[in-house]
């Protein structure tokens, strides 16, 4: 609304009561469960001094673990865009027998203990597993490789993608597609010019959520990863290893790096999203 641009926020009269109370509440619990723990983390990382931190962060094993977490999370989130979009489309647009069941299955990765998912995926994709055996015959090894990690992260991230995009698709009027068709657009043009642009902000949100989840995912990954240092060892696992060695400094350093990478990525995605919303005329 144009009003918000001209009237200072403190002076604005709103019909929705309780702005002060809800903001205070939000800040309070955000501080307790997120800001203070993160600040302690950063404080501890800062406390060890730049030299020590650089040495710990520059450790080859640490770097390869962070790189692995980052790249597999990124790849899995990208794959989830490709899988999640048609899934959300089918669920939002069509009524077919078993739609509700499929709809419920989408949420399973949320509910399932991640370790269960990890063990299930491992037994399925291990070289002697149902699917793994077939892939092994083709010379593709899935479990105990970065490919296996990516697979677990795709499983974990899919509901984020589907659940963010689905309501937006349900909200798109079929009118627009019909209008595009009468104007002469073929299916490809209708999809890329008419349907995709309004979905882009939601797709970016889903991507960001899936990616962030992938960066921090631990339970499902450690079973399928094989956890070979320098090859298939993810950063969250390395933190646990360092903690078990009572090497709190190193654990803190890795955590700080993950935090930095995640924050920078999410910030970049948010900027991109704000830009896409603006350039597509979403904001009024």
């Amino acid at each position, binding site marked *: 609304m144009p009003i918000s641009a001209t009237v200072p926020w403190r002076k604005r009269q709103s019909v929705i009561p309780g702005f002060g109370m809800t903001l205070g509440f939000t800040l309070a619990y955000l501080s307790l469960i997120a800001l203070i723990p993160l600040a302690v983390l950063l404080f501890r990382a800062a406390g060890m001094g730049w030299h020590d931190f650089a040495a710990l962060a520059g450790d080859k094993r640490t770097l390869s673990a962070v790189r692995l977490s980052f790249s597999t999370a990124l790849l899995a989130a990208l794959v989830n865009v490709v899988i999640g979009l048609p899934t959300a489309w089918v669920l939002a647009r069509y009524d077919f027998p078993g739609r509700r069941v499929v709809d419920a299955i989408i949420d399973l990765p949320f509910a399932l203990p991640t370790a269960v998912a990890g063990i299930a995926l491992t037994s399925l994709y291990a070289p002697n597993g149902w699917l793994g055996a077939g892939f092994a015959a083709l010379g593709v090894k899935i479990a105990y490789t970065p490919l296996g990690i990516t697979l677990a992260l795709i499983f974990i991230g899919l509901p984020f993608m589907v659940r963010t995009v689905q309501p937006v698709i349900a909200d798109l009027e079929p*009118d627009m597609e019909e*209008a595009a068709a*009468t*104007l002469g*657009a073929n299916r490809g043009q209708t999809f890329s*010019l008419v349907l995709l642009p309004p979905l882009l902000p939601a797709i970016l949100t889903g991507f960001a959520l899936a990616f962030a989840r992938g960066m921090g995912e631990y339970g499902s990954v450690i079973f399928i990863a094989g956890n070979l240092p320098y090859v298939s060892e993810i950063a969250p696992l390395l933190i646990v290893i360092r903690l078990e060695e009572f090497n709190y400094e190193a654990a803190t350093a890795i955590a700080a790096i993950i935090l930095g990478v995640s924050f920078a990525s999410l910030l970049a995605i948010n900027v991109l999203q704000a830009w896409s919303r603006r350039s597509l*005329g979403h904001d009024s």
Partner: protein
Amino acid sequence: MQVRIEGVTKSFGDHPALKDLSLKVGSGQLFALLGPSGSGKTTLLRLIAGLERADAGAVYFGDVDASRIPIQRRRVGFVFQHYALFRHMTMFDNIAFGILVRRKEFTHTRDSLRRRCLELLDLVQLSGLEDRYPHQLSGGQRQRVALARALAIEPSLLLLDEPFGALDARVRKDLRRWIRELHTKTGHTTLFVTHDQEEALELADAVVVLNDGRVEQIGTPEQIYSAPASPFVFNFIGDSARIPGSAINGGWRGPRPPEDADIFIRPQDVTIVGPHEGAIHGDIVGVRRLADIRRVVVRTGAGDIEVNVADGKPTEMGAAVGLQFDKWRTYRNGVLLQRD
């Protein structure tokens, strides 16, 4: 382009929407499809556009069976009730869309495309708004952009689905007049769907009255209004009262079973006379003010009958009056039996 619809039938599940419907629309004409909701008028329009497929029968564009032409190549300009503008595009991009996706048919340079789109914006009287997004415009403006977008593809046929349905009364009136002018100027064969009889009568060259998936009557607005072919049309167009029976001059006589006949009259064709004169007698039970006339409700043995009364004539609630009929139509089993 002439459009011919031959024996089209269409059902949605168990619900039949169109029943063996035939219709011919001459080139350059402005046709109104008029009917109550559920009469199949929108289904018919969508079928012509290719947005629905007929179960039986065919639509011909000129001499070509339209089912052989994919929707993208029919060159039908379709205007939706809720505009269906691309909300992430500016007005300019909305209008240019049809031209850009048909790059093979329209050989436009960047300059000529721009000129064409601005020309269309000018035609719909929205010059200067090319950089606005749909949510920044009023309903009437959006509908005009939707029309410009449909005209951009140089359609051979223009279809409007309740184009004024979502607009307020004032804007409707303006747009109605404006569409009429536009049609005179551009001469596109045009069909529009409406449930508003006033709109259909004012705007169209010919009105097609639909009821329950069938054509009740096709005719000029004059014919539809003054010579309704069926009780349904009489009842649907304008205000009317239904009196059961078949005889009215020289005293009303109730229906005589098994005869199924009804007399239809309009409020302006009834005169209030003294309580001992006229064909039917009753008491005044209501007086309402319409815009330019008073409407009196008289309760008679044949039911409530509405009568137009000129200003200055006294009308008293409860007064006993007689009614004299100047014009009426009698239908027996739905067929016109006797006029006036």
